[in-house]
């Protein structure tokens, strides 16, 4: 029994490789900056970034919370709209034909171009950011859920009919649970996209948030603090992704048992 251990042990062991890789990468970066004598304004070393981030910690943390709030609201809106649209699309062939092509069109609209229009409509408050995030994040949710709602075994749905199941019962107990693994695939993509959406939205019209802070720091050529802000943005994305994975494990225990 050398290869196996407690599940916890195995999970820890799986972490070793990526952590070692990250440390090697950071070490190489540090070494390169020192050896090649790169100026801090173009590429700060990891230790310089850490120091700058620590010095500006209250500024960074305040702006992190602003961006986190926008992302959670936008992501939440994307889930509600995405699920609602997917159910609507699957409710009838006609609706599917009418709506589905426009979903694709909605993704052809360049987000940086449409974000200022949202600002004109709603002003500089939270709303345009939430709308932009939802706009980029809802698409993978709809597309995956629509596919998922088709994924239930047709034999099962027929069997449910012989058991007297109504259309709504077939959806609730058949098609919908069968679609959940697809929904979660969509949510994972949407989690990553919503961070990008937040940065775009803040660049266009905002006086706070990490995206806005990056613009300000860029103008001030405070590259080290800017890198710290980028690091925090990545952490938000990783955290949101982890949250989705956690929900998936809790809600779909059967999916991992396969």
């Amino acid at each position: 029994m050398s290869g196996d251990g407690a599940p916890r042990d195995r999970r820890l062991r799986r972490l070793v490789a990526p952590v070692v890789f990250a440390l090697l990468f950071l070490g190489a970066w540090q070494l390169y900056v020192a050896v090649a004598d790169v100026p801090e304004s173009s590429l700060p070393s990891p230790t310089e970034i850490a120091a700058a981030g620590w010095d500006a910690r209250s500024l960074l943390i305040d702006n992190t919370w602003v961006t986190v709030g926008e992302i959670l609201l936008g992501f939440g809106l994307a889930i509600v709209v995405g699920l609602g649209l997917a159910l609507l699309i699957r409710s009838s062939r006609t609706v599917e034909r009418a709506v589905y092509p426009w979903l694709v069109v909605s993704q052809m609209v360049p987000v940086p171009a449409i974000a200022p229009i949202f600002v004109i409509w709603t002003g500089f408050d939270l709303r345009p950011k939430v709308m932009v995030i939802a706009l980029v994040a809802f698409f993978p949710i709809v597309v995956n859920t629509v596919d998922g709602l088709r994924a239930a075994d047709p034999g099962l749905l027929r069997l449910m009919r012989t058991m007297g199941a109504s259309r709504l019962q077939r959806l609730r107990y058949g098609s919908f649970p069968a679609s959940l693994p697809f929904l979660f695939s969509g949510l994972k993509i949407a989690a990553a996209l919503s961070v990008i959406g937040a940065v775009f939205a803040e660049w266009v019209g905002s006086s706070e948030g990490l995206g806005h802070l990056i613009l300000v720091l860029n103008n001030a050529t405070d590259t080290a603090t800017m890198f710290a802000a980028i690091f925090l943005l990545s952490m938000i994305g990783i955290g949101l992704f982890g949250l989705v994975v956690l929900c998936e494990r809790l809600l779909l225990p059967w999916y991992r048992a396969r």
Partner: protein
Amino acid sequence: MATEQLLDVRGLTRTYRPGRAGAEEVVALAGVDLSLERGEFVSLIGPSGCGKSTLLNVLSGLDGPTTGTVSLAGDEGSLLGSIAYMPQADLLMPWRTVLDNAALGPQLGGVPLRSARERAAAEMARFGLDGFEGAWPSQLSGGMRQRAALLRTFLTDREVLLLDEPFGALDALTRQDMQERLLELWRDEEKTILFVTHDVEEALFLGDRVVRMSARPGRIEEEIAVGLPRPRTVGRTDLDPRFIELKRGLEAPLRAAQHSGGRG
């Protein structure tokens, strides 16, 4: 007093028009007459492609007859939801535990999940599922999955059960175990069963009567009363000279039909 016909099929035909333009109509069923008395166990055999599936689709209410009638306890209304149907594929929901899969029927009938689960839990032992209440279907063997599907079928509380080759995919030993179990359950629960199979031995071992269908277009070609004593057990019933004689008599026409025309 005439015995009571619970399920009565009269002059049932079903034709299909294939999608291609100008294609000729396919006659799947050409006048099927079949009746099941209350409490009877009838086995239905026939060569591949004889229209067994079409017949079951009509009997379960998924499909309507082209002509002819099907009446359940004298009622010619829609059959959907009034006959329990068990297909060859277990069709367990992978997202439900064995217990919750079994509880599906009562739940769809409006019974609260908690009570539906209690009913299913009380039956686990009798169906050989003791201790597997919380297992996911993906963790079960084929035989266990079929037991769970059988329990789900019984818990729909219908009088008539249509079983479509339910043990077809199981290995021989598991199948024998399931056959004996099914006979016990049939006797205890006083169900009326139409059991479709392509296995002559299985048909004879289980049925009061064996009904043989012709190759397409399907119709009933022969009905025999099995008359073997019950309870039937493997190692006794299947060695009975009458069993062997009936088996020979049934196999010959099936083999002939399989060779001429019947789809692989």
